[in-house]
Structure formats: C-alpha cells, structure tokens
C-alpha cells in the first residue's frame, strides 16, 4: 500500500545514494535462471531452499536464491568487456522456500554490492565502510559489523587436524551459533569431529572479550589478514565500536574464502540485516578465468522491520507535499501556474481534479497528510495573490503569487 511503499522508497533511495557515492553502478539479472546455474553453489542444505520447477518447455529452472551467483554468471560471460576490477550494485527480489518466520520471508528484497577482480583488502574495507555508512545514514546508532575470516577458521580446523572434507560441514554447524545452544552445537559437531576436538573449537571461538582482546588469543593462527583489514578500515574512518571481530562467525554458504561479515542491530531481534564476504573462486564455475570478489547483501525487508521498530520511519509521509485547490474554470489557469511554481520550488505537488467544495478538498489533503493547501479563489486571482493553508496549525497566509517559489524554497522545515 502507498504508506508502506513511501517508507520503502525512502529507505531504498538512501541505500542507493550511499552505493553511488562510492562509485557503484547498477545492473540487473533475470529472476529466473537455469537450475544448473543456481544449484550446487551454496551447499546441500541451502540447495533444498531453492524454488525449482519445470516450465512449459520442460526446462529445468530456478528462481534466484540470491544475486551473487547470477552476478558471477554475468561476469563470467562478459569479463572481457567489463572494466576490471568491476563493482556494481544490484537491488532485486530473491526467493527461498523456507518456513516463514519473523525476519524470514519466502520472497524478499536484497540490495547487493560486489567488487570483483581484485584480491586487495582495500575492497573488504570499502565494503565495510559502505555498510557503516548505509546504517548510519538510515539513522541506526548502535549497529555492529561482525567480521571473521574463513582463513582463520580453516587455520584453526587444520590445527585441530580436522580432515579437509569435514571442514565445510563444521563451518555450516558453527554458523548456527546464534540459533542453537553451545551444547546443541557440540552435539552436531560430534558427527564430524571427536568430543575433545569439538570442545577445543567451541572454547576457542566462544570468547566474550572485546574485539581487540579476542584477536590476541589467536596469535598462534594466521591473523595477518584480519590485522591488515582493520588497519585499512581505520583509514576509511569506520568507527571502532562498529567493527566487532567475532571468531564464531562462520556464514553458512560454501563459497566464502576470506573475510566474512554480518551486521546486527542490537536493539532489534531479527538476525543479520546485512551479510557477505570474500569469495575467491565463484566465477570459475562459469568460465576458465578466476576472479576474486567480495560483496555483501543488505536484507532490505529486515532493515525496514528494524527501522519501524526503532521508529525511524514515523516521519515519512506520502509523496505529495502541497495540494492546489480547484475553485472554478476561471481560476484554474492561475491555480495551474501556482502548481508549476510550487514544483519549481522543489516540492511534490498536485492539483485537485474537480471544483468541489473547499471542505472536501481539504479533507482529501488531510487524508493524504499533505502539509500545505494552496488556494487561489476569485478574490485572490483579482489581486494576484494566493493563500497558503498550513494543515498542521490551520493558519493561513496570503502572499503575492509571484512569491510562491521563494516562499516554499525558503520554508524552514522543507
């Protein structure tokens, strides 16, 4: 409905503005892909959540599960003509055959940014900066960008002598950390590792200290990537308190290889509102070239829920900011001129379509929460004036018609 769409458009516009500020351009890919493109890219459990069906031509097709895999396909098909490194944003619907719950939907919007064709950690840090700027711009003050490194997790698992073929499975179990208790996680881990190995792993990743203290516990493993990332992130001016190193962060998807991210809003219990990370070999499934990339997806619908809960969207009204009243055929030309002037001043404005009673026209404005009604009746037309009614206070102000543009241009609350 219009009220909800006004809020969604407002949020979308803000997110897009941040993306474009960092030089991301938009692309779109089809909602439907061949099954072979989508399946086998995410790991077994996730593949079950893909909507898959046969079309009338008996083609095996899927609705896209995210925008990253279709993006990889597009890059693989076009890399020779794309500027490299290639960065883009993509905003669209994705579909997951999941059981709906709070913050979990079968159809929802993702806003993705990806940088492909560079291994530089400046890319990870830029992504973190964009995340920080998006959530700051939207009015969140306490968001946490949790991060970890798949390389670090693998280095820990190698140290525990976990066979390579079991590591992906263990990472998927670790990813459930915020849904299951440590005991349940341990139980699940036992299918892939010994009791002592599982205990050691949990003891390592479940530390309650602050970001920097946590990092010092991992000296024996490979933390150079994380150190370097933090250094560049600081250069980008990301606030220290927004970046939280979380060694238990795993991300369920198979394709991540380096730094991984999840963003949480501590006051809102809705899960991650943004997530992603570094993937090194995604495109190699579609072409002989290998492109390293890093990207995140913003969970648009969860962000809306969080903003509504924190009352960050209460002020957003419908588009129209001024209604020009319609008195009669003789005054209509003046009214239409006034309409144009209000729009020139930068306000969204509309004319009432019929010369109805003014009370009815005011009621219409009220119903749409339009803050100004501008009237030019026969008397005003005679004197070259217009009357502005401020709907909030009911006060009326009559000014010369040729001052309409400056009046609204200088209006303090616009």
């Amino acid at each position, binding site marked *: 409905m219009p009220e909800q769409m006004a809020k969604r458009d407002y949020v979308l516009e803000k997110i897009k503005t941040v993306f474009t500020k960092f030089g991301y351009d938009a692309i779109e890919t089809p909602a439907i892909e061949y099954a072979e493109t989508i399946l086998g890219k995410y790991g077994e459990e996730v593949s079950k959540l893909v909507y898959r069906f046969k079309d009338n031509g008996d083609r095996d097709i899927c609705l896209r599960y995210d925008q990253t895999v279709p993006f990889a396909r597009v890059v693989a098909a076009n890399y020779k003509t794309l500027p490299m490194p290639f960065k883009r944003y993509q905003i669209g619907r994705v579909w997951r055959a999941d059981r709906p719950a709070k913050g979990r939907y079968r159809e929802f919007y993702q806003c993705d940014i990806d940088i492909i064709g560079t291994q530089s950690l400046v890319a990870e840090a830029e992504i973190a900066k964009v995340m920080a700027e998006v959530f700051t711009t939207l009015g969140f003050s306490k968001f946490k960008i949790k991060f970890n490194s798949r390389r670090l997790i693998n280095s820990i698992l190698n140290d525990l002598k976990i066979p390579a073929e079991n590591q992906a499975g263990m990472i998927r179990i670790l990813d459930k950390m915020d849904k299951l208790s440590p005991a349940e996680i341990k139980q699940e881990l036992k299918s892939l590792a010994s009791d002592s190995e599982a205990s050691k792993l949990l003891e390592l990743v479940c530390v309650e200290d602050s970001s920097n203290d946590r990092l010092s516990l991992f000296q024996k493993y490979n933390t150079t990537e994380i150190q370097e990332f933090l250094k560049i992130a600081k250069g980008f001016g990301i606030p220290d308190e927004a970046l939280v190193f979380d060694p238990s962060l795993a991300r369920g998807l198979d394709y991540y290889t380096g730094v991984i991210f999840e963003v949480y809003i501590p006051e809102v219990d809705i899960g991650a509102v943004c997530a992603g990370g570094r993937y090194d070999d995604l495109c190699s499934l579609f072409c002989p070239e290998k492109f390293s990339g890093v990207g995140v997806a913003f969970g648009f619908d969860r962000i809306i829920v969080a903003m509504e809960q924190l009352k960050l969207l209460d002020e957003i009204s419908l588009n129209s900011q001024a209604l020009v009243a319609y008195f009669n055929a003789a005054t209509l030309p003046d009214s239409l001129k006034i309409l144009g002037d209000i729009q020139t001043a930068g306000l969204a404005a509309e004319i009432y379509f019929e010369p109805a009673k003014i009370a009815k026209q005011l009621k219409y404005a009220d119903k749409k929460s339009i803050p100004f009604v501008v009237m030019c009746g026969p008397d005003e037309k005679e004197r070259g004036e217009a009357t*502005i009614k*401020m709907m*909030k*206070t009911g*006060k*009326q*102000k009559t*000014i*010369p018609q040729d*001052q309409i543009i*400056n*009046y*609204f241009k*200088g*209006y*303090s*609350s616009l």
Partner: protein
Amino acid sequence: MKTPERLRIAVQKSGRLNQGSMDFLVSCGLAFAPNGHSLILPCQNFDLDVLYLRDDDIPEYVSRGVADFGIVGQNVLAEKEFKPKILKKFDFGKCRLMIAAPADSVIKTPKDLEGERIATSYPKLLIDYLKKEKLEAAIIPISGSVEITPDLNLADAICDIVQTGTTLKAHDLVPLFTILESQAVLIESPINKQFKEKFLLKCGIN
C-alpha cells in the same frame, strides 16, 4: 614579501569592527604605515601582515590557516558554524541578532512567526532558532538592507543585527526578541604554526 615566518591576521576591511580591531593591534605596540588601497597591510615592527577582508569571509581564511588569527563577530562565526579557539573577547562590536516586525504587525511573540516570511542575512541561525522553538516559517535570504523588505511586502518580519536600533526605527520596525548576543572576538586558526607564540606574547595573551 611573503616569508614563512610572517603571521597573518584577518580584520574586517570596513564596517563596525574595523576601527576597534586596528585600535587593538596598535594598543599591542604594533606599528603600521598609513595605508592606501592595499588589502594587505604589513606591520612595520613585527612579522605580521593584516589582511583586510569582508567579515563573513574571515572564518574561511582562519579555518584554512591562510590567516593565523582573525578578529570577527560571534554572529559571523555562528552563522558559518565555525568554532575556533577564542583567545579574547572585546568590548567593541557588541550587537544582538533580533527578530523585528512593523509596528502595526500581528507578529508580537515567537509563536506568531509560524508560516510568515522572514527576511535575513543569517539563514542558518534563523533556521536553528525556528527548529528550537518548533516553528516553521519561510526564510527569505537577503544579503543586505534587510530592513526595507517588510515595506515592499517581501517579508512580514526580519531577523537582523541590532546595535542601537536607529535603523529599525527609521523603517518603522520594532525589535521583538533576541536570537543571539554577539561581540567581537580574537580567534586562532586550528592550523598550527610555530611562530604564533610570539604574536600572543606581544598581545599579552597567555
């Protein structure tokens, strides 16, 4: 003429702060040759140049460190949202930023400003004031001679600097309430230069 050791102080070129600013510098023992039309006035007995500027440009010069010091009204600093270190407050340049309206106007209290047209050279300060008072009004930005706008039906009230009130009276305007009290201040650039101390010592500051 420019050597890196030479300091610069920005001073209003002409207007109500010029004389007070120069008097202060002379009282510190600085000597200047009679000035022709040059906008840079070298001091004869100290490594200092005086830059003659429009007062609303002074914050820009000082914030960038082009001028190491400046003498400017607090009203200008507030309008430009520049918050430098203030070294000294002067007795001159005292004034108030006030809302004034024609004697026969319905505008008597802040609440009456709702929806009215207010002409001003200080749009930022006015918008802050309106926000603080939870009011909305149409701001008509004008660079000077704000007092004539109500008479021309361009505005219903004005927001302007009042010193003695004679200009207002001449246009049949009544001062209603104060938005900001202001006086001339000596400010220091946030950009560091090692020779600043010498000037401060000379002026008897610190």
